[in-house]
């Protein structure tokens, strides 16, 4: 019983901490660019404002357009439930393994793309086609990175894999080094950060994610934005907990959970700083260069798998 309660608590924590992470990223970025930053709670205020507003629907909008925000949000919550945030071996992690996790994210992307095309505007179609191209390239990379992890842990269940890495102690695995680099590049592509997509832009030549959701307003927009923030947190937690799992709670005592919470907070803050530095240093790539970027990510994850087979399995 406690386990289920903890699982529900963890998912709620995931949901409500995601905007805080987004706020932290924004704050660090502003400091790096020498601007004055908005408060950490600004994303909450923005979401509250959006929830209060009316939704405006286009005349040609079908049920797809109306239900997509809920589907996307639902799929993202499900994913958040599966990913271990503070503790491992929670019952919700048995719902799905990593492959299904990738599938959930793919479901969300699929519906967003459909919604973008649903109304018939040029921006929506353009954004949808770009998103699908990037998705088509990024998904194999992500699968290969998680397969590398799964091959080492001999299981595709995320919680079991994290527990395995935790129990092995400090082991330097070449495959993990490549896999984490590949996963970071995929995370950048999938969450729409520089250099693949600029989250702050609304210029038609450079939008990808923003183009698909351009027509949304009110609570629909709030749900979609929240889902995007949760997605960023999901990827960050994946990177932090799969490859650097130390601190995560393996038992359900208060002490372990406390340590777990602090550990994940520190890791997320660190990853956010890495992301901001990366975004500041890199310039946004032209769209036709995105396949090369993802090709290099593919190479890294492929090398991860190859080095696992060659170097780590004892011949």
């Amino acid at each position, binding site marked *: 019983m406690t386990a289920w309660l903890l699982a529900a608590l963890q998912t709620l924590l995931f949901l409500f901490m995601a905007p805080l992470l987004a706020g932290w990223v924004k704050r660090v970025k502003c400091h790096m660019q020498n601007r004055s930053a908005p408060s950490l709670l600004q994303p909450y205020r923005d979401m509250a404002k959006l929830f209060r507003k009316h939704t405006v629907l286009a005349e040609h909008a079908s049920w797809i357009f109306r239900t997509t925000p809920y589907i996307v949000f639902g799929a993202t919550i499900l994913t958040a439930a599966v990913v271990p945030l503070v503790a491992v071996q929670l019952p919700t992690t048995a719902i799905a393994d990593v492959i299904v996790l990738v599938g959930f994210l793919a479901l969300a992307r699929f519906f967003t793309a459909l919604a973008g095309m649903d109304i018939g505007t040029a921006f929506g179609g353009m954004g949808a086609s770009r998103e699908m191209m990037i998705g088509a390239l990024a998904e194999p990379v992500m699968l290969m990175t998680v397969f590398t992890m799964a091959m080492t842990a001999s299981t595709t269940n995320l919680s079991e894999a994290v527990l395995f890495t935790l129990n092995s102690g400090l082991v330097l695995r070449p495959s993990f080094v490549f896999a984490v680099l590949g996963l970071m590049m995929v995370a950048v592509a999938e969450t729409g950060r520089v250099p693949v997509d600029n989250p702050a832009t609304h210029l038609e030549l450079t939008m990808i994610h923003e183009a698909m959701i351009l027509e949304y307003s009110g609570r629909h927009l709030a749900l979609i934005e929240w889902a995007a923030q949760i997605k960023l947190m999901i990827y960050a937690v994946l990177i932090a907990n799969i490859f650097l799992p130390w601190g995560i709670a393996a038992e359900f005592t208060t002490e372990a959970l406390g340590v777990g919470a602090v550990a994940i907070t520190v890791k997320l803050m660190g990853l956010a700083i890495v992301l901001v530095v990366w975004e500041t240093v890199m310039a946004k790539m032209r769209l036709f260069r995105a396949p090369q970027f993802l*090709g290099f990510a593919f*190479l890294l994850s492929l090398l991860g798998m190859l080095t696992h087979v060659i170097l*780590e399995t*004892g011949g």
Partner: protein
Amino acid sequence: MELAQLSLFNQAVLVLAALALLTSFLMLAQGRKLPLIYTYGWQGVLLAVTTALVAYVTGHTHLYISAVLTLALKALLIPWLLHRLAVRLNVQRENEPIAYPSLLLLAGAALVVFSYYVSLPIVQFAASATRNIIAVSMSIVLLGMLLMITRRRAMAQVIGFMSMENGLFFAGVVSTYGMPMIVELGIAFDVLVAAILFGVFFFQMRASIDSLDVDRLNRLREVDE
């Protein structure tokens, strides 16, 4: 031997070897001259550190000398020579457009698989902890050759050649813990002389065909017209 059972230093050797392989791939996709030279320098550094770690783990102290030799020659001297050449030939800002970089990287990955397959019979017989790295060293050799085949500029071909020698030296280190000292010194001397001669060559090439584009060296044909 499972990875988790090896000592931390052994694992570090594997990680560094994998990173050296990554530098080979980075060189395949890099069109600009100076980053290419620097990547080659980093490959030398990684190999020198790996050699020193292998020396520490296995207790073969003569490998420390090999590590210092590699660092001095392949991470410092030869990149410095190449850098000087690039500046004197005024090609340091040149970017050679690579036709299909993603395809090239995939071909490189296929070569890694091939070298793993080829080195399986050797790996079975090695009792050392570094035996799996033989496949990595052979991949570095093959990737160096791929680099030579796919480039048109003489400087990139020379770096491919040097990278191949890196891989061969590394193969010697990991399969047999280095060769007898006199042979290693001889090989290092040969590599140095080769680098110097390449430098002299570039000037001759530039003076005779007015560019460093190897595709222009095409006057000697099999069947003379």
